[in-house]
């Protein structure tokens, strides 16, 4: 149970944080959407890691090899993440569609410019 032994979790968390950074810090909507997508990918890696069994093989069941039934990777997290990827793609698609509409309506996808334009509307 050393820290290094769980390196795949560290990578997953690192990826999530790299994704979260532009969502918080960057004013460009496309960068925010990219960040969200990366954040979700980090979660997928986390789920896949949960399903890993040390020494386990792909979950294709075959009896004759006399294989220990416990030595297959848990396929449920993989199946879940298949759904998760679909959700993530849909989110990205909806977000990009809104970004396109914003570009048409405001002529920009930079948060600061959009906020200025809204302020001008009110005055």
């Amino acid at each position, binding site marked *: 149970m050393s820290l290094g032994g769980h390196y795949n979790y560290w990578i997953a968390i690192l990826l999530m944080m790299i994704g979260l950074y532009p969502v918080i810090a960057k004013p460009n909507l496309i960068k925010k959407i990219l960040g*969200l997508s990366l954040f979700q990918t980090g*979660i997928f890696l986390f789920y896949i890691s949960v399903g890993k069994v040390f020494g386990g093989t792909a979950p294709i069941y075959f009896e004759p090899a006399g294989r220990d039934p416990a030595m297959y990777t848990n396929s449920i997290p993989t199946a879940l993440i298949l*759904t998760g990827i679909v959700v993530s793609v849909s989110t990205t698609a*909806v977000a990009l569609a809104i970004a396109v509409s*914003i570009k048409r309506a405001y002529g920009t996808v930079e948060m600061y410019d959009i906020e200025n334009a809204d302020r001008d509307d009110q005055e």
Partner: protein
Amino acid sequence: MIRNNLPVLVIIIPLLAGLVTSFSRRLPGFAWAWVTAVTWVVFAIAVALLREVLGLPTGGHISYPMGSWTVPWGIEYRVDALNGFVLVIVAGIAAVVTSGARLSIEAEIPADRQHLFYSVWLLCITGLLGITVTGDAFNVYVLLEIASLATYTLVAMGKDRSRRALTASMNYVVLGTIGASFILIGIGYLYMVSGTLNMADIAEHLRVLQSAWQQGDMTYRRTVVTAFAFLMTGFAIKLALFPVHSWLPDAYTYAPSPVSALLAATATKVGAYITFRFLFTVLGASFSFNVMPAGVIILICGVAAVLAGSWIAMRQSNIKRMLAYSSVAQIGYIAIGLGLANPTGLQGSIVHLFNHAVTKGGLFLALAGVSFRRGGVTLRHVQGMGRRMPLTMAAFVAGGMGLIGVPLTSGFISKWYLLSGAIDKASYASAVALILGSLLAVGYVWRVVEVIYFRPPADPAEDVREAPASILIATWVLIGASLFFGVNATLTARLSAAAVRALGVLP
């Protein structure tokens, strides 16, 4: 055969019907009639389910194994007194709002996109009902995203009236996705320690672990604590609990009027329900409230929400935005009941889910009528309208009374429960917040009432008529329900008591 499949029909029907709606471009008028019919059918199913659950012995539930896969390996749909009640609220509001929304939608959405609007509308309702009815943790995430994606789209469809609908929707996409992702991470941690996704089964595994912790064996304790933190943050965002409510005011303000009515009345209620479900059923009340400080955190957020939401609401000139901030405050009331976590407080929370849904739904529908006749919903647009649109304005005042919690409105009933709960628990800070919140509500409702009745119309020559009958009837059905259940609370009290028992907290 249909009888046994009711728990799944409640989401399959609107899902498939929504698909059909998206092909109806060449049939103007079909989409509305079809969607209205579908929502009423769904409402009938929800009522049938609730009646069946209440007929069972105390603590009973209906379990539906999806595709006949044995529970807990397959996905289970599970209805008990709590989510049966929430199903009825969501389906009922959806049916009434849809029935009254036709003219408002025709006025606010371009003709070539209306069929798509109705399609997404049904998809949103499907998602909300799905979150409520499912007994599977991962299924919650998927349906949550279905509801959220539909909501982002519905909000963005307000863009033809104001382009700020787009930025509001974008904000909501970013925050909503982070919230949903946090929930996904939390569910992943729970799966790590339990190896199952069925909520009841997770709860069973956690109970074994928790009793081991009491013996000093701390296996997986840290993992469960992490799951708790992620889940609570995610749900708080979805529920728009102060201070992570920032997506809500813009989204409600710039969404098309019927969308605001639907969302304000249902989306946050479902968020509250799922928080209840995870805190009590999945994680277990003793873990959430004794081991973890969920009660204190939620109470602080709830008190802050009531005070800040009501205070900001008093300073708005756009009435829709005012109601949106009032929603932030009302979610605070629900949170206070949840944070108290005693039977009376919880019952207040659950009654308030219903009472606030009908009241706020009615208020937003009244504004849909104002928007239809006047083209906007700022104070200027309602100025002097007490004589010109008497029924709409009367509905607004009656709804406003409900927000304040005047006796003989349903708001009074829920606040009574919440206040008794706070005093039972000797939580005087929340009792003070409940009362202060009501006083502030008097402030923001009175501002509007004064403008409506005591000022002359901005343009006396202008000919303004009463809102169309269809919108008016829907408005009064909801406001009428709010008044009726304020006078006669027997039914809501019985339902909420049964719901509290379903949470495993004995009243």
